[in-house]
């Protein structure tokens, strides 16, 4: 990874004083992750270019940390070639004085804005050129970015997220270095190596004065707080190494969850869905209820608020999701009586589970569309034949409605992990079949604004078992 700082200030080679690095030398520094070299390909009074070359020891950075048992990307990755949090560390260690605006030999230069260009070869930009510009331009930089292809042999694979980036401004060197220090890790998609809690604090403190008024401050801050993968997620990731689904990757997953949420937000569809499900559960007279595929517990939270639900069981196939639900619902801190009403179970809806038998009602909210179509029959039997609750309230997207959204349309699904989405006809004939096969009656409810031709965005079926408890 190469950072090149160029100035055309006259005399340009004053840059060497500002950086405290002699232009006739080749200097190397030992850093925790490898080495950094500083040298000048050009140093005249018209133009001066200083280079900071990071020599990241890819093998060394992963050794000596217990058993080598991480994921493959820990070993073969872009770290040696890209500007990342390593660069921030190097900047502060190698250009410490320049950073702090100290210059023994040319103290008057420190506070003078001079024409500067910083060039990064290469910067991984998560969020694309638009985000790149939205981060640097408000700070007064002119941005030039050249995107590199993933592999010119396979154009179908698309572009890479790597850019050669040059930012130019008439600015104080210390400001330029501070901006790079704080902003470079923001673009990076990987977790920040070697940036511990304390360093994070330090990093943010560097932003004082300009970060607070930056229009992208929220996004910049959020990106620092990277998700720390738990052991469980790593175990899971090992299994899907070659078959990465966006949903499995935590980041991507939040992105897709968010995509669906964003899509549906103007309709406040989510709240309406929960409302409809609650109404149907209440109407059934159920007191012991299951939330099958409870996710992070949005429905559970509402069920807990209503004392008529005496026994509430949330079920999910993902342990990580259940952990999140446990935290969000603050289960560990609930008063004993409240806590006794709710239980979270790790289980699967394609296996039968005797712990799920004998409940009054079950909610299956936005779950079936995440199952492979070939597993629907196993789901059907697990729920309607074995668990056999008195009432089942089941919601799923109405595919017909997708055309209402510009960026979805008829051919696309709302979420990357959806294996299918049903039209109203498809859903109703499936639901009626299920009801007939297992001795249930079924009725349908609309959730969200009903389009005359396309129906509602979410469709709901309420199944009642013949001979189940009276309403």
């Amino acid at each position, binding site marked *: 990874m190469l950072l090149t700082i160029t100035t055309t200030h006259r005399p340009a080679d004053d840059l060497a004083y500002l950086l405290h690095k002699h232009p*006739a*030398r*080749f200097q*190397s520094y030992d850093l925790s992750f490898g080495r950094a*070299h500083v*040298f000048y*390909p*050009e140093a005249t009074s018209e133009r001066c270019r200083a280079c900071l*070359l990071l*020599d990241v020891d*890819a*093998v*060394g950075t992963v050794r000596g940390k217990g*058993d*080598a*048992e*991480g*994921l*493959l*990307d820990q*070993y*073969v*990755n872009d770290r*040696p*070639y890209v500007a990342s949090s390593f660069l921030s560390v190097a900047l502060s260690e190698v250009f410490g004085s320049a950073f702090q605006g100290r210059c023994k030999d040319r103290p008057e230069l420190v506070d003078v804005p001079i024409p500067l260009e910083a060039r990064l*070869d290469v910067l991984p930009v998560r969020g694309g050129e638009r985000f790149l510009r939205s981060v640097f331009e408000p700070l007064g930089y002119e941005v030039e970015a050249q995107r*590199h292809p*993933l*592999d010119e*042999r*396979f154009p179908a*694979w*698309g572009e*890479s997220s*790597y850019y*050669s980036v040059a930012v130019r401004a008439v600015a104080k060197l210390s400001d330029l270095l501070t901006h790079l220090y704080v902003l470079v890790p923001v673009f990076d998609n990987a977790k920040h190596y070697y940036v511990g809690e304390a360093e994070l604090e330090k990093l943010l403190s560097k932003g004082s004065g300009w970060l607070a008024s930056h229009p992208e401050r929220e996004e910049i801050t959020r990106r620092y707080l990277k998700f720390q993968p738990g052991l*469980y997620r*790593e*175990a*899971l990731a*090992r*299994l*899907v*190494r*070659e*078959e990465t*689904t966006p949903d499995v990757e935590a980041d991507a997953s939040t992105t897709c969850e968010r995509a669906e949420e964003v899509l549906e937000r103007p309709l406040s569809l989510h709240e309406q869905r929960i409302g409809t499900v609650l109404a149907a559960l209440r109407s059934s007279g159920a007191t012991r209820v299951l939330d099958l595929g409870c996710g992070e517990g949005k429905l559970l939270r509402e069920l807990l608020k209503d004392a008529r639900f005496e026994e509430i069981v949330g079920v999910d*196939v993902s*342990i990580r999701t259940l952990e999140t639900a446990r935290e969000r619902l603050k289960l560990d801190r609930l008063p004993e009586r409240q806590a006794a009403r709710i239980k979270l179970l*790790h*289980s*699967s*809806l394609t*296996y039968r*589970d*005797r712990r799920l038998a004998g409940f009054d009602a079950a909610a299956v909210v936005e779950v079936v569309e995440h199952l492979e179509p*070939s597993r629907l029959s*196993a789901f059907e039997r*697990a729920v309607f034949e*074995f668990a056999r609750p008195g009432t089942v309230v089941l919601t799923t997207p109405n595919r017909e409605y997708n055309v209402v959204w510009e960026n979805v349309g008829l051919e696309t699904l709302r979420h990357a992990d959806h294996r299918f989405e049903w039209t109203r006809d498809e859903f109703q004939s499936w639901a009626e079949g299920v009801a007939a096969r297992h001795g249930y009656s079924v009725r349908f409810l609309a959730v969200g604004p009903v389009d005359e031709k396309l129906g509602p965005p979410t469709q709901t079926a309420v199944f009642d078992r013949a001979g189940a408890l009276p309403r």
Partner: protein
Amino acid sequence: MTINIPKLSLVVLVGPSGSGKSTFARRHFKPTEILSSDFCRGMISDDENDQTVTREAFEVLHYVAAKRLALGRLTVIDATNVQPEARKPLVELARDYHVLPVAVVLDLPERVCRDRNAARGDRDFGAHVIRNQRSQLRRSLRDLRREGFRHVYVFHAPEQLDAAVVERTPLWNDKRDDHGPFDLIGDVHGCCDELETLLLRLGYVPTPAPGVALADGAPCYVHPGGRRAIFLGDLVDRGPRVLDTLRLVKTMVEGGSALCVPGNHDMKLLDKLRGKNVRITHGLANTLAEIDALPDGTRASYCNGLASFLDALVSHYVLDDGKLVAAHAGMKEEMQGRGSGKVRAFALYGETTGETDEFGLPVRFNWASEYRGRALVVYGHTPVPEPDRLNNTVNVDTGCVFGGKLTALRYPEDEFVSVPAARVYCEPSRPFLATAEAEPPLSTQQAHDQTLDADDVLGKRIIPTRLRGSVTIRAENAAAALEVMSRFAADPRWLIYLPPTMSPCETSREEGLLEHPAEAFAYYRDEGVPRVVCEEKHMGSRAVVVACRDEAAARERFGATTGECGVVVTRTGRRFFSDDALERAFLNRVRAALSASDFWTRLDSAWACLDCELMPWSAKAQELLRTQYAAVGSAGSAALPRAVGALAEAAARLAGDERAKLAEVEAKYRLRSDNIDRFVAAYRHYCWTVETLDDLKLAPFHLLAVEGRVHTDMDHAWHMETLAEVCRADPGLLLATRYQVVDVTDEASQAAAVAWWHDHTARGGEGMVVKPLDFTAKGRRGLIQPAVKCRGREYLRIIYGPDYTTSENLERLRSRGLGRKRALAIGEFALGVEGLERFVRREPLRRVHECVFGVLALESEPVDPRL
């Protein structure tokens, strides 16, 4: 006095303090069989005589007793038990676990008890205590049987007690020592014509009955090979020749060529014979009419004889070391070999839900759907059109009297022999014969297997395997596997195998290399293996292919109902193709090649399971390639030339030491720049664009299993040759794997293989896999690695990074531990083979799935992914 107690019973000692209960118990029972209330007191309070903890002590005692009885262990309760309220929970406990309660009463003189207590320093209670206990005991004596004790033994004198002998007798139903062979015959219901035909067909020969035959001299059917028939009850009612049937069976049972368990109809007849008021329904009238037709003079004695025959029938039998259970309506695992009213009722009627169906008949609860026992349970009672297997149970009542057939199961051969009914003797109240439908229905087991039980996979599991004993799956790994299985995996019915992980060879010390075939050869040589096979290692994605000859085979063997003829899954059980049509087209090509090479006939199977590599790598791993390999290549190719350029410019400006320092770094960066090009070249070897099926290449290398056989007994050369023949049938899609057999004790043979490896890897090949020639090989300490890989120098750049080849990096990378990876490889291999063997034996799907799930769970173990 000799006291006989059933082998499995709850022995309750009854006697006052000092009567010698503990001494008696110690003399006749194992220390672990005895539960003493005093010991329980001591266990929780440090004082065996602390009467204030009596309640808690008995809770402990009952809890432990319950665990023992559940496990089928004889248990002796050493406590005074002189009060009925103390004995009541013990009798209930015995009932709960279907064991017989036995009371042994020590009614010794008061003086004896007092003297004994006096001799012990820790028992200083007054004489009135013993007096009270004795009087309570005496009052209890006559009630013990009414309380539910099946055997009561009373001792009055110390000498009597000293002379006592305890004999443990097996229960009537315990015929574990009888190993057959047997022919288990379903409900006859008076269809004696069909029964006679069936017995003849089974090879039984009518011979004059030994000893005192029945008045009419019915012959005794005897099998010259010593086989015995087991009649599963319901001999009587509905059919045309009830009494003939009874005579025939009775003669065989008395002559020792048959066993018989009672059916509900037989027991209802017994009630009638004993004068009880029973409703004459469900065909009992036929039986009674036959009895009425007997001559007046012999009727009464006939009925007496019949009643005592029926009365002596034992509810069910446990046979052949506990591997076989015979009962009329079935027998759940926890009741097998036990005796109680509930056991008998279950044997006669099975379980019902309490509801009635639209025909007014009780709705049966299918106990077999929850059956997990080791013993094969053979039963009848509920007529089914065909013998019905489910979870190691089989119903052989094929409704002869309703016009079906009379069926026998030959054991241990596990074959059915049937004789069709000559006609419909009785109209069933609920139709049971399938109406001629277009498609044969799935078997009960297949229908059951559509939904597997989470209980069978979750939590810590210990899976026994033939090859390697028990393999343990940790609960956390099972949890991870559950998510992957539920969200991504193919239908478990197709998922009969997942491949094991593979370890590399030990690390090479050769200049510039991490891996070299010499280490693989040495590994097998050191384990005593003389010959190995070296197979070209393809670089694509692992694929397990199950292919069926036709839809019928897919339906019959895999329970497929939607016209699929096979499946292609990845190493984590996920369908390889997300497009159903593409999968079908792909499988059709594979199936066509199998047919064209006459595979189905040669292997005598309608399906096959193949372990393969599917290329290109980019077909499945595109996401990985894009986000990791191409990304690294792109970043490096963009950044490194810039760095080299800047360094070169600076070099021109510097002099002396500074220039020398720079030159060293510049050289390093030039090398890196070359290495990133090599890295990109390495992964590109395994990528190409797929537009048609012919752009895919499938290289099968194990012919894992076909009907009736898992090919672990065939060596790898056989696998290679057999598969090569299939590949020749479609060279557009199928790729035969190149291989060499190497003698690891012969230098030249090894050198040839090493040269081959060098040549192959130099041209971009991934490397080779070295396997012992035999599919499963044992070494010095049991099972050894089924395969190790030797990867090429360039390929390893993808794994260890573009610059791994610098001597400084190689030196550090050489210290890698293979132990964990190798332990996983062996465990997963054993599980994979176990799953296939279970599938081939037609075991219930949950038993196959347990192994497949186990492989997936083990794959989530943390291990260095570069190995």
